[in-house]
């Protein structure tokens, strides 16, 4: 590096030669500070989203850099929220990037004392098998009064209020087609 340049960038020299003799402002700024840019500006893209917590439905802007979410903040365009977020909404980035978030399928065999690994594909297949086994075992053509019911009461589901409409739609559709009726969510809790 140019020694002269280095010398001239020495804040003491800048103090003596510039407008900031006391070394409290312009002279003291570091080269890194001078280049600082917000990660909202350096993001590869911004995606419009909706807060996943409560049902107010605040708008969120999701900033993505190198295929990672780097920032989530309120969307000022939203007529619902006008860019504001509560503490939970403000924690959304931590929600999605939390190191504690589970990454792989976990499996506990009957009477097991700890989790085990299981490949995703196999786990899904096992679940499908369980559903069909239970359904076959518990299928009812008619109820105890003889009325037609075409159903299974062998398995149930709870959840959906945090999910997308499209997801709930597939859940309801698939379960109903299987004859499962005990499908519930937070709306009743």
């Amino acid at each position, binding site marked *: 590096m140019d020694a002269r340049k280095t010398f001239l960038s020495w804040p003491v020299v800048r103090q003596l030669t510039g407008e900031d003799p006391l070394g409290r402002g312009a002279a003291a700024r570091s080269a890194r500070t001078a280049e600082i840019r917000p990660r909202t500006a350096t993001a590869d893209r911004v995606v419009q989203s909706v807060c*996943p917590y409560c049902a*107010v439905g605040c708008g969120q802007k999701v900033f993505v850099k190198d295929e990672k979410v780097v920032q989530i903040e309120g969307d000022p365009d939203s007529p619902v929220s006008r860019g504001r977020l509560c503490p939970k909404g403000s924690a959304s980035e931590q*929600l999605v990037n939390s190191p504690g978030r589970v990454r792989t*399928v976990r499996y506990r065999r009957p009477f097991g004392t700890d989790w085990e690994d299981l490949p995703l594909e196999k786990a899904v297949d096992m679940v499908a*098998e369980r559903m069909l086994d239970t359904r076959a075992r518990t299928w009812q053509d008619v*109820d105890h009064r003889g009325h*037609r019911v075409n159903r299974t009461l*062998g398995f149930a589901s709870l959840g959906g209020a945090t999910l*997308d409409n499209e997801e709930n739609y597939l859940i309801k559709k698939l379960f109903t087609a299987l004859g499962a009726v005990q499908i519930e969510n937070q709306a009743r809790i």
Partner: protein
Amino acid sequence: MAECHPVGFQWVMEAKARGAKVIHIDPRFTRTSAVADTHVPLRAGSDIAFLGGIVKYILDNEKYFREYVVAYTNAATLVGEDFVDSEDLGGLFSGYDEEKASYDQSSWAYERADEAAAAGDREGSGKGNGAQDGGHAEGHAFGSGGPGLDSHEVQRDETLQHPRTVFQVLKRHYARYTPEMVEEVCGVSRAQFLEVCEAVTANSGRERTTCWVYSVGWTHHSVGVQYIRGSAIIQLLLGNMGRPGGGILALRGHASIQGSTDIPTLFNLLPGYLPMPKAGEDESFGAYLDTIRSTEQKGFWTNADAYTVSLLKAWWGEHATAENGYAFDYLPRISGDHSTYQTVLDMNDGKIEGYFLLGQNPAVGSAHGRLQRLGMAQLKWLVVRDLNMIESATFWKDGPEIATGEMKTEEIGTEVFFFPAAAHTEKSGTFTQTQRMLQWHHKAVEPEGDRRSELEFFHLVGQKIRAKLADSTLERDRPIQHLTWDYPVDEHGEPSAEAVLQEVNGRYVSGEKAGRPLSGFAELKADGSTACGCWIYSGVYADGVNQSARRKPGREQSWVAPDWGWAWPMNRRQLYNRASADPDGKPWSERKAYVWWDEDQAKWVGHDVPDFQVGKAPSYRPEPGATGPDALAGDDPFIMQADGKGWLYAPSGLLDGPMPVHYEPAESPVRNPMYEQQGNPTREVFKRKDNLQNPSAGEAGSEVFPYVFTTYRLTEHHTAGGMSRWLPYLSELQPEFFCEVSPEHARERGLEHLGWATIVTARTAIEARVLVTDRVVPLTVGGKVIHQVGLPYHWGVGGGGAIVSGDSANDLFGLSLDANVHIQESKVASCDIVPGRRPTGPELLQFVEAYRSRAGITVETGNTRHTAQEGSP
């Protein structure tokens, strides 16, 4: 609202800055109270008395909006002669069947013009109604429409003088809800109560409107539906429905909890609030349709056939034909209560093999956590899909019942699959927020590892099941084999959420427009030419455009902001907005103009999409005998109601009465000061050893549980904690489970600030750190001081990786449900509180058992529903 919906609360603060008066009615002084003009502390569980007092004030002081009330509500409608009010039956209405603990609602019906029948024989009547004997699935089945009526041909007296007009019935019903009674029941001083009455009525009328806002704690009562009915009556009387700045706003706590009711993951509903068919009743498609709506009634529910056929076409495509009743028989039938609590009880009885938990943590978030966990330990298999390793996935190793020795890990046979879920940034789709608005969220990044969306997971499960059953010849496998399940997938295997939304929106399946998207539910046909996955969402993909993804900035459009997202139905931001104009179609006032009739254009215009047939003039009167939408007059704004009117009195559809009555909570240290009938006589109870109830006032042993407790959320956490206790930034803000008590209560029980307290009910005992605070105040109820304990319910014992943990408040509750909707009473119950930490291990069980035996609790305790002597004054 400031506590749980801070960003929504910005609008309240803005209104306040413009001069609005903000009144906060809550047992505790919360962050909402801190900035309100008035805080009204009332006893948890006494809201109906408070609301009833306001109704009486409105009626007595003639503060109702007479023109609105006469024209738009059923005030003028005559009730049949058979109806007997709770005033005359010790707190019960006519038609109570003691054995079934339910009402035959036929005596509640309107008087028919043709006098042919007085039978609003639709729901509840003659159906088995106890939780134990099934038949409890009706109340919630009416969704946006309300229940049917046999006919809209009703008798009216627009002078409101006839003694059997709804108006006069209402007057008599509310006669005893005096300010003195409000004071005695709620613990609210007369002066403060009257201040509220005056503020509410002064800010209602032509020029002004008042809005009521509740958070869903109102639904967490054994009389929850009637709480909301109570405020609906006030709002109708004051002319605040369907008008800007008015209405009743339900603040809901999950991103798409509205959506999960619209497109229901609920046992008793099909998409768009169509009821699930019932065993023994809906044997045929025709019979099913008849139970949804009377073809003689007014309103849009008469088109339910088109909605249902289109749904069946969406699900079974070409296999749904006119010949096979559009595959109606592919639908399973329900019989009685299959709600989540009944299911959990069935689990405990070994009747359920498998369970899916999808972003839900019932081990912490549902009432009676112990029953939830013991139930899950009885399953063969359990699938948990969540972001974090929640308690419901780890109950087999760290549940409180492991600590007490009731369960042993090695003896629990439940096979548990935990699937990590994709977050909202990792999938596209719509949330429906609390005002029925769908908002599309775009996928930002691909989920990592095994994380998947529910969309992909269930699509995959469906594909696997269809493959496994492809060769089956069993009748029961037809619905699966014939199911439409061909969604386009991307390169990662994720099905297209847009394709699903298009199916929900609906399309023409035959005719010249075949394949084109529907522009709204008015285009739905009952002849199989349209398919639509959820009729109320029809229009969300109008013109082939994802309307829910519209994001025209709010500042670039009107204050109604119609071009942001899409609200059902038909992008209407405010329901029943025809009522914002007078019967002649003119705005009630310029200040409160919203939609109005434009004579020149001969149509309804305004700031919002009119919730009315756009070309129907105010002067329109239906032909005699008209039905459905055509039967709605030009001044019938409540277009989904069977008579086009707002219901001050519900002649059918509610299982616990046509009007609200103050009943004490299922567990209450207070004897009902208003009626002999103590609790809701139709509440759903479960007499089981694993669901014991505390004795209430009037029963032996009630003094053992002398305090009232309530539960709630804190701003810093989210429900059962699955999305907050795992985050350092939220956990550090509220790191420990605590109870809030008044200084007086602390003194009475020797509780020390920052010390520990143990809270006990018949179910269990939990421990919490003590916050002594002036924000909790003892109330005098019926001459007796009532102390209330506040418990936020976000904590659980463990799970994997939670940053903070603690006992779960919901473990304290037993199960008593509102009969209409099967929602548990979890905002109020009785308890004892003592200083110090709770015992651990088996000693905890002994500790609770000692309480039970002191109070003499049996399975009958607290479960006697009928306590009034019928016919006594």
